């Protein structure tokens, strides 16, 4: 059910600007909605992170993935079981930039016998890396339309991305990789029964949305084509707070822009917030040094305990019988 809800929701999101972005509607889809979306995105994102940040971390509970630091002659694993800030930075860097935990992934098979076997299963890791890095590259490359004059690193990234020199405009690897990876992530949800069972509308929706976003971008660049100069004029106008709507930009552009607006406005209220959450996950971003450095719980409160005196009162005679020392005779 979730998949159809999401699918038709995204179809609707494509149709809305197709119909609406005409005449005065262009001001709504070209200026008002993008501004509102950016505001929601930035404020919403900060709101969520602050909300997490205001929640205390009462205990230091890292998930340890390697030998701890103990006796000096025992080799420890500072990246999977860090005991220092440096180690934690290393662990987090691996997690954020290389998806270290996902790299561990295995697939279990129960065979006749019974025999439980563990196969290497790196496809999710590969697809996730491809998806995220392609998205990053595509996003950064859009800076050529955000900034005038175009900064050097964007031009450089562009020439690397298009090094295959296929077609004109040159085919960019990142856009194809992004689209394919997103499609893989979608098909995987549908093909694996367990995954299909756990998937919610909230899982399909961002995938459809991103596929539509990337699809509309590719369509705009390679097939339908719009006047890039006018597009940039509009975009630079937005970023320099002098919004204008140049004449004659094709509808496909407004579809693309609207899908992006929806994506970023949806971002702070969805699972996409894993982008911020991964930095704040207490099982990953803390050193395993509890025994060496005391962690403070801000809401630690006194509890009712059964004291030794109460205990001795309960059992004094029996203790004395077997010669156990007691406080009170």
């Amino acid at each position: 059910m979730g998949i159809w809800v999401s699918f038709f929701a995204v179809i609707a999101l494509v149709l809305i600007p197709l119909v609406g972005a005409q005449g005065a509607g262009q001001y709504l889809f070209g200026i008002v909605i993008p501004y509102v979306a950016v505001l929601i995105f930035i404020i919403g994102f900060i709101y969520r992170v602050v909300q997490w940040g205001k929640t205390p971390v009462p205990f230091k509970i890292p998930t340890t993935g390697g030998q701890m630091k103990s006796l000096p002659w025992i080799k420890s694993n500072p990246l999977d079981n860090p005991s220092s800030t440096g180690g934690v930075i290393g662990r987090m860097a691996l997690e954020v930039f290389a998806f270290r935990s996902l790299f561990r992934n295995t697939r279990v098979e129960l065979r006749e016998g019974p025999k439980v076997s563990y196969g290497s299963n790196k496809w999710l890791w590969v697809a996730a890396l491809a998806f995220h890095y392609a998205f990053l590259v595509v996003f950064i490359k859009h800076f050529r339309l955000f900034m005038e004059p175009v900064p050097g690193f964007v031009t450089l990234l562009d020439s690397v991305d298009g090094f295959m020199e296929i077609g004109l405009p040159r085919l960019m690897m990142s856009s194809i990789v992004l689209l394919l990876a997103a499609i893989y992530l979608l098909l995987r949800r549908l093909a694996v029964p367990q995954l299909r069972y756990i998937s919610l509308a909230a899982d399909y929706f961002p995938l459809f949305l991103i596929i539509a976003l990337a699809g509309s971008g590719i369509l705009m660049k390679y097939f339908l084509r719009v006047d890039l100069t006018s597009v940039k004029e509009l975009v630079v106008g937005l970023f320099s707070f002098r919004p204008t709507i140049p004449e004659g930009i094709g509808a496909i552009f407004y579809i693309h822009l609207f899908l992006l607006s929806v994506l970023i406005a949806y971002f702070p209220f969805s699972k996409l917030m894993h982008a911020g959450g991964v930095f704040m996950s207490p099982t990953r971003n803390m050193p395993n040094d509890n025994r060496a450095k005391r962690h403070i719980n801000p809401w630690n409160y006194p509890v009712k305990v059964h004291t030794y005196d109460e205990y001795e009162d309960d059992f004094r005679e029996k203790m004395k019988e077997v010669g156990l020392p007691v406080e009170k005779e």
Partner: protein
Amino acid sequence: MYNKGKIITGIVIFVLFFASPFLYGLVKSGPPPEPELSPKAKEAKLCVEAKEYMVESHMQMLNEWRDEAIRNGKRIYVATNGKEYTVSLQNTCMECHNNKSKFCDQCHNYAGVSPYCWECHIEPKEK
């Protein structure tokens, strides 16, 4: 324990990253380009195809022209209005648009595009 300092640092980095185009836009935002038509082009009034089509799709047309001319030896292009043109960047296009820096480069630089035409072709001498 709250890690206040680290979280605020993170938020600042986040905001700086996403606000960078705005900050950049406030400091410098060049005007949109004004490609200059040569007197000859002005006089001709019409390019090979309609202006809108040329603005959006000239790269596509040049790509086809190259393939047709080099691979198939076809050197005549029949425009939508029936007029015939010689398929040649240098002799047809650049004949009118004879100033690369005032015409081509204007939009290409603005959009951050670096076409590889000039890896083979020689740009016309600017007058």
